[in-house]
């Protein structure tokens, strides 16, 4: 009971902080925070996939990017009075390609932004997991998927906008994107989405399904000999986290106003994993907070030390991974354990898995 209460308190403070943050932040900082919240959504998916299930994907940038592109296509069409996006005109395309025509419909665009990534993840997941490719092999394959996708998006410039990606949007549902009212609404939509995603994920980990995920991480083969076929579970969680990433992409494009193939690449994909690692991969809240904190640190460092910030960022990654294997959430637990030392030993044992499991 106490455990539940404490978890609730953590979440309460977290979301209280997020709800009041815009009142204390300038527009620009609030915009940045909104962007980091999108990253938080991705990190939650990675926590489920990696922390809980033990599947390390180094290709979540692809799913994020696909979601973002789906939304961006709709926005781009809304921003193209001639009906054909500007970059297509430069490439000599006079008729809107079929793929694009479907994205005139915002409902389709948003649905696609979630479904396309999850279907692609389900497909990749099905074949690889069915063939019992796991661990590092899966990670490497997910990198290959990144390479294929990014190359494809850069190569198909006439349709995708090439390296520049899609940008220069003005309105969403005819409402100007730059209005502070729109921005505020989008911010709270993002907070609310993050809340839903976290609540769903947290709930999921507490069900029998969540225990199966941990069992897959601890020993996939053992689970087979208990009569489970892990493939379906792994595909499901992979597709779910891809859907989260796609959703994050939608919110990202709406608030940041640009998506380019770079954002799908290896570097952002690895960074996504780092967010979860720094926050604590075994904790939903930790992962979300990790995404926000890591990116805050990144922004802060790059603004303060534009010349050397990558050194500091690299050192931060290094220190966290070396000394905080369970991330900041693990640190919180450690600190708490120190406080709780005098309490009964039993208590201490339990505390280990409240945030970190």
């Amino acid at each position, binding site marked *: 009971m106490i455990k539940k209460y404490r978890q609730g308190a953590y979440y309460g403070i977290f979301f209280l902080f997020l709800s009041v943050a815009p009142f204390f932040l300038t527009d620009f900082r609030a915009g940045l925070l909104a962007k980091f919240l999108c990253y938080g959504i991705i990190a939650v998916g990675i926590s489920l996939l990696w922390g809980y299930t033990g599947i390390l994907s180094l290709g979540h940038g692809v799913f994020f990017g696909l979601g973002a592109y789906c939304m961006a296509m709709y926005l781009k069409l809304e921003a193209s009075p001639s009906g054909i996006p500007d970059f297509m005109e430069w490439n000599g395309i006079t008729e809107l390609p079929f793929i694009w025509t479907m994205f005139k419909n915002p409902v389709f665009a948003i649905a696609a932004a979630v479904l396309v990534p999850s279907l692609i993840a389900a497909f990749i997941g099905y074949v690889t997991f069915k063939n019992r490719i796991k661990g590092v092999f899966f990670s490497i394959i997910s990198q290959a998927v990144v390479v294929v996708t990014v190359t494809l998006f850069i190569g198909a410039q006439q349709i995708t906008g090439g390296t520049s990606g899609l940008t220069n949007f003005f309105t969403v549902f005819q409402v100007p994107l730059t209005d502070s009212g729109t921005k505020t609404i989008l911010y709270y939509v993002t907070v609310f989405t993050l809340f839903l995603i976290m609540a769903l994920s947290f709930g999921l980990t507490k*069900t*029998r*399904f969540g*225990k*199966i995920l*941990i*069992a897959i*991480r*601890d*020993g996939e*083969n*053992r*689970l*087979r*000999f*208990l*009569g*489970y*076929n892990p493939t*379906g*579970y792994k595909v*499901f969680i992979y597709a779910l986290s891809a859907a989260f990433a796609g959703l994050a992409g939608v919110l990202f494009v709406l608030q940041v106003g640009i998506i380019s193939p770079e954002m799908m690449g290896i570097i952002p994909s690895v960074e996504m994993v780092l967010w979860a690692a720094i926050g604590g991969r075994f904790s939903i809240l930790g992962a979300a907070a990790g995404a926000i904190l890591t990116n805050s640190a990144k922004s802060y460092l790059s603004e303060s030390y534009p010349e050397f910030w990558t050194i500091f960022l690299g050192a931060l990654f290094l220190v966290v991974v070396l000394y905080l294997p369970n991330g900041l959430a693990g640190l919180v637990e450690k600190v708490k354990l120190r406080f709780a030392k005098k309490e009964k030993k039993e208590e201490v*044992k*339990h505390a*280990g*898995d409240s945030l970190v*499991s």
Partner: protein
Amino acid sequence: MQEILSCRNVMVDFSGFKALQGVNLDVKKGEILFLIGPNGAGKTTLLDVICKKTKLTAGTVLFDGKISLEKLPEYKIVHEGVVRKFQAPSIFIHLTPFENLEIAMKQKKGLFSILLAKMSRLEKEKIDSLLNKIGLFDVRNETASSLSHGQKQWLEIGMQLIQEPKLLLLDEPIAGMSGLERTKTGELMQEISQICTVLVVEHDMDFVRKYSTRVIVMHEGKVLSEGTMQEIQENEEVKNVYLGRSG
């Protein structure tokens, strides 16, 4: 007695190394059958073949007179009621004993059934009573990693029992256990055999003598001899290759 499992001419070839060279073996319903033999005789490999951890190179494994196990994937073999306990404790160390049993429990184990699954009172009672039986009720909410070795072994046996198997495959269940724990495990095994058939790989001859209804001796990938422990002990051939060596 009726055969619950019959292996015919089972061969396993590990890229050149012939671990099993045409094993024929029948397990009768309700018995406690022990597999013994020197190291490398192929006992564990045979268990592996039955539960599909290892693919056989040739032969058939017929379960319950009609099901060809060698054609099923591992998890479906389990669904048929053939359950395996591995030598090293194979429990999920980040889950509690209760949770370990919860997921092991006989239930529909497809993705969607599990997604929708809710713990019913009946299920809870079933798990609790089994926890009592294997003596883990007091530690049911500890993480399994903190259990002692014996506790882990029992938890694993518990995880097999709660699946309500028809055939239980045990690989050295008492390895590393103290005398008291051995007795307890043996009694548990006898109790189990009331409801299902047990096939055990074991090295401890006292244990075998005490609890076996029948014994099969394997040597160099083949069945050497079978019978009661008495008969086996009197078998000259067995004495030569096995008992003679181990004293």
